[in-house]
Structures are given as structure tokens and as C-alpha cells.
């Protein structure tokens, strides 16, 4: 028996988007709409456990041109929790290796009466190009180092669950900022909602140019640590490097790993987050990852709530 809740049947008038491609182009109001909706979905599904019926007769296609298990499973489960059918398409690398462009691939899948395409691709802008070329809704599940909007949203939802107000919070993103789509989506989302954002990591992976956008740039984690309300520990993306940006993993861990020693110098109520998959011992030590300040597993649950909210909002505004 499916479970329904009246109050989430109505999409706010202010929500008009039929795609979610990035957080950079969203307003604070739109971000808040998604977060509030996600919160209500989480409640209505008793912590994302129960099924709702709001997207029955809809089909969501997962188009993953890059390896992923957790994000894809999260989107699939979110779609099914809403009553939608799902189809899965995955291919690594360029679709042209099979003789067709990725736009052809998407059009072929769309022709199966698809309502939403969830796309993950190693190249920035691919979701935007799909949105320009196909009729159905497009949700980005990450485009190279550009953005990962639902990851940014679930991180922010997790912070919001622990802190009433984002405005005035200091959130540090630590690690490989240069190659991190999670970092970019967090930066835009957090700044629009009034948080102070610090990017911290090796100077080869953290550009000074972020200052031009109002982001604080730091290279020494110990200097900023006492001021931080939240640390989001990003994975070093070894697969995206051409020349190694730092001498050794050992040296990186020495400078940036969040460990028990550093925890003692942090605020008492600091939140430790990581988008995963985490490299234990590189960006975070096991005692911290599994410790009382860690909200890493909350993030996973919130991922489902955010993806349900986004699927519902983009299809709803199209059908309105």
C-alpha cells in the first residue's frame, strides 16, 4: 500500500525549472524549495523507507557514461520510491566509440517515452547539451569536475538538519578542489544560502581565483580548523590527474587528513562530512569517519530524499 501526503502534492509557484543542471544558476529561493521538499519527502517516506505514488506512469532513464554505483543506485531507488519505472544505460567513455554521438544515444533512449534523463558524464557541460537537444527533463548526476548538483544539495540538507540556519556558518571544503564537482556545487549552494565557504588544500589543487567569487582560500588546514562549523572532506581524484599535483599520499595525509589529533583542536560541535567514496587514511582517518561528529551516512540517506524531491519538481513543473 502506497503512502501519500497531501501537502507535497503541490509544487510551489516559484519553481519553474524542468531541468536540474547545476546549482550555479539556481536562486536561494529555488535551493530552499528543493531542500524543503526533500525534507517533506523524507518525512513522508519515514526516512526514505516507504513508497509514494506521485510519479507512477513516469519513466526515469539513468544514463551513466561514467562508472558510478552509489549515485546511480540512489537515483534509481529515489525514482522507484516515487512509483516511477527506471531504465539503466551505462557506457564508459565516449558513445562515439560505437559510432553514434552521445546526443544520438540520448535521443534513442528518449524515444522510449522517457520523462526524465539522469545523466552522469566525465565531460563538463554534457547535461546542458542534452537539455538543449532533447525534450524530456534532464538531471545532472555529475559532469566531470563541473558540478554535481544533487550531491551539493544533499550535503546542504545534511548541514541544515544539524544547524537551523546556514547563514553565518563556516564550511570548509578540504582536498582536491580543482577536480571536484562536489566542491563546485557546494560552493554555489552554500554561498547563495549565506554560509562562509573556505576551500582548503594543496596550492596545486586550490586556485587563488576562487577569491574572486568571494570564497576564502586557505592552504593550511590547522590555521582554519578552529573557525570551522563543518568540514567536507573531498576525495583526491587520482584518476583525473596528468602530472601528480603533490609529492606523495603520505605528505598529503600529513597536511590535510582529518584525524583524532586535529579533532581535538576543532569546535566541539563540528560536523564531519565526506561525499564518498572515502579513502580512509588519506583525507580522513577511520576514528574520525566513524566517530560521533561524522554525518557521512546521513548524507547517503539525504541523497535519496534530495533526488526524490528533484525528480518530482522537474517533472511537475513540466506537466503544470
Amino acid at each position: 500500500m502506497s503512502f501519500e501526503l497531501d501537502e507535497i502534492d503541490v509544487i510551489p509557484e516559484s519553481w519553474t525549472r524542468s531541468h536540474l543542471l547545476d546549482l550555479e544558476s539556481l536562486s536561494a529561493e529555488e535551493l530552499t524549495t528543493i531542500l524543503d521538499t526533500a525534507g517533506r519527502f523524507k518525512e513522508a517516506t519515514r526516512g526514505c523507507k516507504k513508497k509514494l505514488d506521485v510519479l507512477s506512469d513516469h519513466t526515469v532513464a539513468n544514463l551513466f557514461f561514467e562508472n558510478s554505483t552509489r549515485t546511480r543506485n540512489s537515483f534509481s531507488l529515489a525514482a522507484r520510491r516515487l512509483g516511477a519505472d527506471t531504465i539503466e544505460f551505462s557506457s564508459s567513455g565516449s558513445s562515439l566509440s560505437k559510432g553514434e554521438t552521445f546526443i544520438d544515444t540520448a535521443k534513442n533512449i528518449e524515444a522510449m517515452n522517457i520523462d526524465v534523463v539522469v545523466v552522469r558524464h566525465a565531460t563538463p557541460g554534457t547535461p546542458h547539451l542534452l537539455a538543449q537537444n532533447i525534450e524530456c527533463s534532464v538531471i545532472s548526476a555529475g559532469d566531470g569536475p563541473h558540478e554535481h548538483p544533487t550531491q551539493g544539495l544533499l550535503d546542504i540538507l545534511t548541514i541544515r538538519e544539524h544547524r537551523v540556519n546556514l547563514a553565518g556558518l563556516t564550511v570548509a571544503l578540504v582536498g582536491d578542489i580543482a577536480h571536484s564537482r562536489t566542491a563546485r556545487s557546494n560552493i554555489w549552494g552554500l554561498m547563495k544560502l549565506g554560509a562562509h565557504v573556505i576551500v582548503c588544500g594543496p596550492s596545486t589543487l586550490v586556485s587563488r581565483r576562487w577569491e574572486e567569487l568571494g570564497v576564502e582560500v586557505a592552504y593550511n588546514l590547522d590555521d582554519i580548523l578552529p573557525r570551522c562549523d563543518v568540514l567536507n572532506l573531498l576525495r583526491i581524484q587520482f584518476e583525473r590527474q596528468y602530472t601528480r599535483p603533490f609529492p606523495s599520499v603520505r605528505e598529503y595525509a600529513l597536511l590535510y587528513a582529518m584525524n583524532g589529533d586535529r579533532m581535538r583542536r576543532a569546535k566541539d560541535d563540528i560536523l564531519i562530512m565526506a561525499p564518498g567514496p572515502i579513502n580512509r587514511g588519506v583525507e580522513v582517518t577511520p576514528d574520525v569517519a566513524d566517530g560521533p561528529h561524522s554525518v557521512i551516512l546521513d548524507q547517503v540517506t539525504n541523497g535519496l530524499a534530495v533526488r526524490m524531491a528533484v525528480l518530482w519538481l522537474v517533472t511537475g513543473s513540466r506537466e503544470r
Partner: protein
Amino acid sequence: MNHPTKPRILIQNGRVIDPVQKLDRVTNLLIEDGKIAAYDVALNGQDVVLDATDKIISPGLIDLHVELREPGWEEDETIATGTAAALAGGFTSIACIPNTDPPIDTQAGVEFVQHQAERARNCNVHVLACVSKHRKGEELAEIGMLVEAGAIGFTDAERPIHNPELLRRALEYCLMFDKPILNHPEVLELTHDGIMHDGLLSMILGLKGLPTEAEDMMTARDLRLAEATGGRLHLMNISSAESVELIRRAKTRGVIVTAEVSPHNFSLTDESLRSFNSNCKVNPPLRDQRCIEACVAGLQDGTLDVIASSHAPRASEKKMQELDQAPFGISALETALALVISELIEPGHLDWDSALEKLTVNPARVLGLAKGTLEIGADADVTIIDPHHQWTVTRSSFRSKSCNTPYLGRSLKGRADTVLVGGEVRFQVS
């Protein structure tokens, strides 16, 4: 052998601008036997009369940086379609670069291009052959034999001459033949996987950057080698403010060097990549406003000698790929003149004389061609320009086989109205 007599053509009432003769006045121009015959001639039973009222009569435009893609990449362009596009763009002579498959590094290759161009009977085509065998950057191609076959200069096209010793030898060796070496300056180790200009926007979009330093470092190296050898160096595709300054200083010191800029590099910034449109992916990339201003200043003071289209047609199926897979390049022959008029002349950055100099006699001098002027006795390569015509760039406006242009939908001012090659009308707007 008796050549059939070419028609006597009178071009009436046009504003003749010829930078070589310091000429800028409204007059009638007579063409006889394929040559410029006389000025101020009255209407007197000529075979063909072309009315050029309110139009500009320019020496035929010359583009020294064109990819014709044939042989090997006929899905992008053929010699017939590329030269038709050149004519429609107002160019009476082009030099084609050898990034073909196989690359033009043999006499047979040079002659193939010449024969295809003769068959097409559009504009004059001059062949730039490879500096290195198979365009591999390892050893010199048979430059002497290529000169014998008609090659007028040497370049490895978009592949920079990476090995400084090879460039040194090429500059020295070409001194014997008085031919230029054209190099695309880019230190590849700094641009690996690059997609767009390295700046704030590339950081925001997560797209790998092509930094200006990559261009500047090789520009500096090339200038030093030109100075050391006395060879004829032409720098292709200048786009960075620092490179413009390096060239300016070298010229002040007396280094023999010429340099070019392409219309997209003085008219568009990296902001164009916001749309992730692969037609804006070009190398060197669309840079920032500061670089555009430096390129314009370089054109104004003569640091940049030549405006070259850098025509790089690419089939739509290649450009429809993901941004990192899509090739670099802009199909540029048919927008170049309008961009010079709209972006340089109309806003007052360059006057007509100085703009046309960079599209006619300067490229002719780089290539060692006795063209680019309307002096009496010169080949009657003439471009009649309608400077007022307002038009919108659409796919159907292209004669090029590829319409990979970032200007689709843009309204531009000015176009070639009538184009004569060797005293024959080869193109006329309908």
C-alpha cells in the same frame, strides 16, 4: 600558344583603396587581359561593366592560414568547397596548411592540391608544405624539392615545432630558398587536455584550461631563434596579450618576424563557452577582454601584421561530441571580412586602409607573393566590398562544407559583393 582574350572589365564609381599605392578615392578601374590596366577610364564599350557605387574596390583579399582538409578529411571540406567558401568570403588567394592525411610533405602532395585547385577554378591556392617529414616534428621534410614543386612556405600546421633544434635548422635551411616558416606557438605540456582559455570561467566550469603562458613561452623561444638565425619566421594564431608584447619588443629590436591574429580572437571571449557550444572550441582559445584589447592594439601599431581566418572546418558529427572529444576549429572564411568590418572598422579601431593592408599586401609579403595591390600591371585579383550590407549568419549562408561557427545567428555588417580572380568574375552575390 594563344590564350583566349580575357574580357575588358570596367569597375565604375567605386572607392578604390590600395594601401600599397596609398590610394583612397572614387574612380573607375579598367581591367584588360587579366591585369589592372588603367584608372580614371570612361565607359567606352568595355565587355563587362561592374557598378561599384557606394562600394569599396580592394586588392583581392589574401588569407594565409586556411585548412582545406583534402586529402583525407573530405567530410570536413574539400578543395572545391573550401575555395568556393574563400571566394564568397572575398579571398582571391589563400595559402592552405598541410594538416591533411597524408600530410603535404612530398612533391606529389603539393601537386595534388594544385591540380584540385585548378579544377575547382575558384581562388588562387598556394601550398604551405610540412616543415617535418610526416609532420612528426622529428626531421626536416624535403624542403628544396617541395619548393621546386611550388610550396611557398613551411609549417607543421596546428602542431607546434616542439624541438627547438628542428626549428633552428628549418629557419636556417629555408634562408637558402627565401621561404617563411610558420609556427603555431604552444607548449603542449602546458595545454594537455585543454579545452578553453585558462581563467576564472574555466575554473568555474571545470574545463581544463589552455593557459596564455603556453603560447607566450613558445613565442619567446621562436622570436629568439628568428633573431639568432635571421630566418623568416611567421607566428600563427597569436591570441595572448603577453605574446603581442613579446613580438612588439622583438620588432623594436629589429627581429624579422611577422604575426597573425584571427577574427574570433579579437571578437569573442571565453564567456562564449558558457553555453558549452563546441563551435566555440578553438585553439588558441577564445580568451579574455584584456587579450582582445591587446590584439587590437597589436593590429593598430603593426605588431600584428596579418589578419588570417584560421579556417578550420569540422563536420557536424565531430562537433556534436562531448566538449573534450569535439575537435578544435572554426569555419571562418565566410565571416572573416564581416568581422573585420563589424569589430574593427565600425567601432573605429582600424581605418579601411590599415585593415585592408592586413588582409592584402601584408599576407602577400609574408608569403613572397607579388599580389595584394591594384597597381597598373598587377594581376587583376579584385574584391568589391559592400561595407553596408547587414546580414545574419545562418547555416545556409555557408559554402564551406562545415558550418562550425560560433557566430550562428549573429548579425554582421559587410560582405564581398563581387570577386575577380585574374580578371575574371568568379563570385557575385545573387
